[in-house]
């Protein structure tokens, strides 16, 4: 009997053990918040919007916005991406809805990625829909809430603008989607509706952000106004206003006939609003006084450094910076731009090499055009330039790299351009080769593709892109912490100048000088003399040249060459510059026709717009493809 009692007791204990535990299946996630929690605390919403910033530009893995391993600039005539050249499908003539390369690539540096941009739009829709109900107590929390909402509007406008710049009119949706929603009825809006949707968000952002102070790096009214200027200028351009003749009436990519003047005026006024200080006080960094020519060597250096510092700033931003993205030294998204672009002889990866035509397009210091054939009239671009040591001493301008405008020295690392110290090796980019006086090779350049250090990362064009590299960062070891400046005052001035000049081209002559004045501010800051002309078409050339140089490498060139529809002209093969430096100081510079480093070809007008990815059309068959693609 005793035994039985014990048994029963044991069973009771067991059952207690089995049932008394708290229910292990009813637990909260330990590594994530659920939606209710996020929208119950304004600080979590703030952190959530932090992530939305992170996703601007659509690739959190490899740099954000414009700073990535493969630059958008390499989709233009300015630079050559040596790591994945085939990815630039619009330059290669290989783009198709299936083959969007750089523009959908999930690997290195993909840009304008359709799904990622929309993913962030969904994030922003979620926060904009939910933020009003977030409980706040104090007045400062109330202010924070309004400000965060404004930031969300700004980022959403930015996302939609990227989609529009790439694809034209896109599917517009401003409510958060759920899994069970019906997507089959959603179609692309016209480019005009898309523009309006963007401007509406920008207006909201400006209203909510005006007069509010915020941490550097978060959106401001100025940033939203700058975006408005950029969006309107894009919409006012030839590409979207009948320039694309075959599709002039296609509302996905063209505005209604006759819209252009109004769009240009709106673009002009949007820029003017920023210039007038309505959204904060901005000014060009450095002096905008007329330079006294000729510049001394020290002055050239000073102008160059002033310009370069815009792109290497750390800590508090200068007056020119309207908005940008900052990068941490560890953790978070790593920007290693020195490593991406630096010379191979510094154990860097030598990507995004300036091309020879782009290098030649920099003016001389006195504002005259650089002429490769100045000493060899009658030749062509492949004609070698030579100079003996004595000739160079007598006329330094025989070297193509002497006497150029200051920005040249801030943007391009050419053979002989000073760069960081590296032990016994030359503290300059050595992209050329050393020859004995008898014409035999002595040694290959440390930073050339035949050098002794990681030569496979050597420049293919003979140049490296210096502009975004921080001279204080050893690229082989460290991340960059300099800011990527997305909006700067110089862009506002040149946007304004372009709108004015284009209005003058359309007959509003009164705007011409306003445009030239803004243009000349940018030139003067760079140490160059004023442009003077009464011919709007000449002014247009001046403006286009200035945008190319001022924004070199920043990516604007890709939009500009499309807006102006000049990609058929500027898309050319890329050749390598070969430099021989003899021991006795004699020099030879030669663009080598035997060394074709990149085949490029322009496939036709339909390439001015990116195709909608095939996968997207398969998922949403109601989506209309861009013209020219099947």
């Amino acid at each position, binding site marked *: 009997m005793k035994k039985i009692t014990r048994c029963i007791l044991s069973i009771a204990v067991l059952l207690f053990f089995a049932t008394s535990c708290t229910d292990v299946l009813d637990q909260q996630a330990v*590594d994530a918040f659920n939606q209710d929690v996020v929208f119950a605390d304004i600080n979590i919403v703030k952190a959530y919007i932090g992530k939305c910033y992170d996703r601007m530009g659509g690739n959190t893995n490899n740099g954000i916005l414009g700073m990535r391993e493969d630059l958008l600039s390499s989709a233009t005539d300015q630079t050559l991406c040596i790591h994945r050249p085939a990815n630039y499908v619009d330059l290669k003539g290989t783009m198709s809805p299936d083959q969007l390369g750089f523009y959908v690539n999930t690997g290195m540096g993909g840009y304008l990625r359709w799904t990622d941009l929309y993913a962030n739009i969904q994030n922003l829709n979620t926060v904009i829909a939910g933020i009003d109900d977030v409980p706040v107590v104090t007045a400062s929390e109330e202010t924070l809430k309004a400000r965060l909402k404004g930031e969300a509007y700004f980022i959403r406008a930015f996302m939609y603008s990227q989609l529009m710049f790439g694809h034209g009119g896109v599917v517009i949706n401003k409510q958060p989607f759920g899994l069970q929603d019906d997507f089959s009825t959603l179609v692309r809006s016209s480019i005009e509706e898309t523009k309006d949707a963007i401007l509406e968000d920008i207006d909201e952002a400006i209203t909510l952000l005006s007069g509010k102070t915020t941490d550097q790096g978060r959106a401001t009214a100025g940033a939203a106004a700058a975006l408005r200027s950029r969006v309107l200028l894009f919409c006012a351009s030839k590409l979207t206003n009948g320039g694309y003749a075959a599709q002039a009436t296609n509302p996905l990519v063209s505005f209604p006939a006759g819209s252009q003047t109004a769009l240009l005026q709106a673009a002009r006024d949007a820029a003017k609003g920023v210039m007038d200080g309505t959204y904060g006080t901005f000014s060009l960094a450095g002096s905008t006084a007329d330079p006294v020519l000729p510049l001394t060597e020290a002055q050239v250096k000073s102008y160059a450094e002033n310009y370069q510092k815009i792109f290497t700033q750390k800590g508090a931003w200068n007056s020119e910076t309207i908005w940008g993205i900052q990068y941490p030294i560890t953790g978070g998204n790593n920007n290693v731009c020195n490593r991406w672009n630096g010379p191979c002889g510094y154990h860097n990866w030598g990507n995004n090499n300036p091309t020879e035509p782009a290098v030649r397009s920099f003016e001389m210091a006195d504002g005259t055009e650089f002429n490769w054939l100045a000493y060899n009239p009658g030749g062509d671009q492949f004609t070698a330039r030579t100079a003996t040591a004595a000739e160079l001493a007598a006329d330094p301008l025989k070297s193509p790299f002497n006497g150029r405008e200051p920005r040249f020295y801030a943007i391009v690392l050419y053979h002989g351009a000073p760069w960081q110290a590296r032990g016994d090796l030359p503290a300059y980019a050595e992209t050329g080769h050393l020859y004995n006086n008898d014409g035999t090779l002595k040694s290959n350049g440390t930073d050339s593709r035949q050098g002794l250090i990681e030569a496979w990362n050597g420049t293919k064009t003979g140049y490296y892109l210096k502009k975004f590299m921080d001279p204080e960062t050893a690229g082989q070891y460290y991340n960059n912490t300099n800011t990527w400046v997305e909006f700067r005052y110089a862009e506002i001035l040149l946007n304004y100048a372009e709108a004015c000049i284009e209005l003058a081209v359309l007959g509003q002559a009164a705007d011409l000088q306003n445009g030239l004045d803004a243009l000349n501010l940018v030139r003067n800051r760079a140490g160059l003399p004023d442009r003077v002309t009464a011919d709007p078409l000449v002014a247009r050339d001046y403006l286009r040249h200035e945008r190319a140089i001022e924004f070199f490498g920043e990516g604007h060139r890709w939009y500009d060459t499309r807006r102006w529809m000049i990609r058929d002209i500027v898309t050319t093969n890329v050749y390598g510059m070969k430099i021989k430096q003899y021991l006795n100081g004699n020099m030879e510079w030669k663009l080598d026709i035997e060394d074709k480093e990149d085949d490029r070809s322009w496939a036709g007008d339909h390439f001015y717009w990116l195709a909608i990815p095939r996968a997207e059309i398969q998922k949403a068959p109601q989506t209309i493809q861009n013209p020219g693609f099947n």
Partner: protein
Amino acid sequence: MKKTPSCFWSYGPNVSFRRFLLPAKIVVILLFCSLAIPNLATAADYPAVEDQQVRITGTVTDATTGEAMPGVNIQVQGTSIGAITDIDGKYALENVDRGATLIFTFIGYDSQQVALGGRVVVDVSLVQEVTDLDEVVVVGYATQKRANVVGSVTSISGQSIQSIPSVSVSTAIAGRLPGSIVIQETGEPGNLGARILVRGRSTISRGERYANTGPLVIIDGVQGRSMDEIDPMDIASLSVLKDASAAIYGASAANGVILITTKSGAEGKPRLNYQFYQGFMTPTVVPETTNAAEYATMLSEYQVYQGKSRTYSDEDIAHFASGDDPWGHPNTDWYGDLIKNWTTTYRHNLTIDGGSKGMTYYVSLGLKGDESFYKQSTTSYKQYNVRAKINLPINSWLNTGLDIAGFLNNRIYPYKSADAIVGQSTRLLPTQWSFWPNGLPGPDIEYGDNPVVTSTFAGGKNDQKTYRMQSTFNFSITPPVIKGLAINGAFSFDLTNYYNKAFYKPWTLYFPDKNAPIDPATGYYPLYPSLRGLSSPENNERYDRTINQTGNVNVTYTKKFGDHNLNIYAGYEQYTNNYNRLVGYRKYYISDLIQTMDAGSDAEKNSSGYATIYARKSWIGRATYDYKGKYLAEILFRRDGSLKFPPESRWGNFPGFLVGWRASEEGFWKESLPFINYFKLRASYGKMGMDPGDPFQYMNKFGLSSGMVFGTGTSIETTVGPPSIANPNITWETQTTKNVGFDSKFLNDLFHLNFEYFYNIREDILFPRDATVPGFSGLSLPDENIARVDNQGFEIELGFHKTLGSDVRLDLSANFSHSRNKVVFMDEPEVLMPWQVREGRPYVLNNDNLMYKAIGIYADQADLDTYVHLPNAKPGDVIFEDVSGDGEITNDDRIFLDKFDMPENYYGITLDVGYKAFTLTVLVQGQGEFWKLNYYDNRRGEAGNYFKWHYDNRWTPDNIHTDVARAYNRDDLYWSNDVRRSTYWYDNFAFARLKNVVLTYNVPNRLYRSLGIQNANVYFSGNNLALLYSATKTYDPEVNNPGVYPAMRTFAVGANITF
């Protein structure tokens, strides 16, 4: 420095020194035992033996029943003296040497050898021979005699894999278990767990070929224990449940279940067993790359063909070929400079067991390890393990038990991963210097990657230690009032602490200073040192803690009504898993002598952490019934609830039904088919589940992620999101499994033939709808229960067993498994091209699913004109087929790889021969068609060396009819794997290999009995010994790609001694 404690599992330098000595010592002792001792012993014994012949008497009884056994044969070993027991089991032998050994034999019983050791009365109990039908097979939550098993269950004993020189159990079972595919994807020490697929792949997986395909592994009833850490010597048996018999594991069982049971002590005097082996390893296949002259030739070919300037002139190539300028024109064999020909592996194990009156104990100590084949054996794996298993009966109705196991693992790696060392060795240029002619290390290709240096500790080390404690307390109550009833319970607490210290520092490479004057001594530039890799020493420390808790209470009831046998099991189980991680990081260490976290600089310090949880509750039931062992039936049931799913869809029911008919027991069978002496027909049907994927997908989850810098400082603000969208209906995947099969034996067990056919339907497979939900929805898609895959196949096992006289035993068996899956439904867009529809095809994973069909190489311009081609194609490029026939090559021409990216056919052939004291076991194992990338990284050409297979047969203007394309550079050409994926890079990796050979010699016990040793054997064994056939020979067919650490061929010598 702290004194290293001398305990068994310390990690001090003393131990690593001993590690080298210990195996060597043992080999010496062993040789001494087998050669020297016998000689000494016989020399000493002879005079005594002459004088001491005695009369021996005794009784022989049956060990189980205790009854006397008449007719038992007794032989004095090595003589003709013998006797037979009388009706009372008694015997007598005259004139026997005092030191002799008696051999007792009786049909149906295990024979026994007994050393007299001076005794004159020797009583012996014989144990009934266990035939394989009596073999106890572990099935889910129970054991069954093989004869009564109705499920599709294969099993092997621990003993059959103990001599295989492989540190992990998963690799040792390859080819031995029909229906289990074993693939060893790398040979890297510490990373040797093989991939196991039970009956192939019945699911579709995301991103990775084998995601969510592994079987559930249960060790001693507990989930979450590693079959690669368990000491093979501790394994009593290993079973694989392949059909509805796995249904008792419910929601985790759909990929099959592997059950491992560890040994327990047996009653008797303490018994000590020591086993060891010392192995020597060398790579099976080393992927070949081009030498300097070949590389320079091939690269020049490409450059000239593309109109680019050449990197190497003809003169350079001549220097590379002649080797006359080692400073300026080296010819480096990177792989050769990286590796040594032989490295080592070892295992030692000591067990003690015994017990009396129901109290038994089993204690085991183990040590095993592997060292890398780098010249400095930096990468190494070492494990110490201990296990104590005690059975403590309290009284007649209460029994308790305690099982505690501890594992200490140490994995050590240099700074660079195997990929960056071994893989980069195939990439580094042969025209670069591994070492300069003066012995200094040469430059890197990037990241400081000079493998001959990065394979050493020059860049610091990554020391990973896992401390694992597994404990189970169990009890069993058998209330005397109800016969056959037992109440059992077990609680397991498994704690794993993982500690990873990665202290890294810059290393020095030497570069030529081309601006300095030529060094007259070498005729080359002087060298200068440069620090590479890191700017300063840095330290990453990580602590992980995992706690697994399993509680199980159950009731079992056994009842026999006449010829009816009934067994019932009903239980409740709860499993929880909690994981936490803490990581700290600092850099700018002043010196690498003090490596604690606080010795680093405050600048750029960083920390992070992570946590996960999982829990499951289960109700488990089983009822088995048999009539005379002839008609067998089994019903299984499990109800599982998972933390991962919402309350409404959290619970799933998983039943299994199994029936068997032992037809050979029927009278008619015995009459008409007597040559089939055993035949059992089996059938089963069951439903099982799977709960893969992230938990809490039923909520909108906002995770934490990497931060952003705001403000003018450099501090990072943590960010939250982006959210994943909720799927409120998420629930289990379910698999319906049907199986029929038979087991048979012919001609009195001379042959056996087993056959199984199965059909699995996996439904509600969790997969995101990312092929049909438009990107503009912006949704981060959760898993949904949408896909369905059917998988069917068969297994055949055939064997031959013959004993010739008493000396020769022969066992030959072969198994063959086949499985083929078919996608019945998965999320895919509407496409017009039927060759791009996945439904109805075997599931094949590749990164973007579709690829061009490569059908050859354009031999010449005529070929280009014949075939549709891409605009930039030239002779020597890869021909893509215009599948759609529309006259251009577009993405519409892409097809699914119409090959199998998983072995569909898998086989093993085992030969087991015994001759007197020798046993030889040979296993040949192989797989059929298996397609995968014959490729490793795109940086070939200017940025990396070429593989020799490409060089040897490449297209050149002089070799136009070939199937290997022309020289290329990175992804510059349209047929590059990164630009347009095509079948060009895929090859068949079918193979057959001599997997294991074990030759064992039972050392006669007269040689060592005086030492108190009961039994001793020595063995020579080998693993991955030879590739008998390999469809593609560029790298080992089992490993992932030519850039991974190659598979190893192992030769070992070992011994097993029982005291």
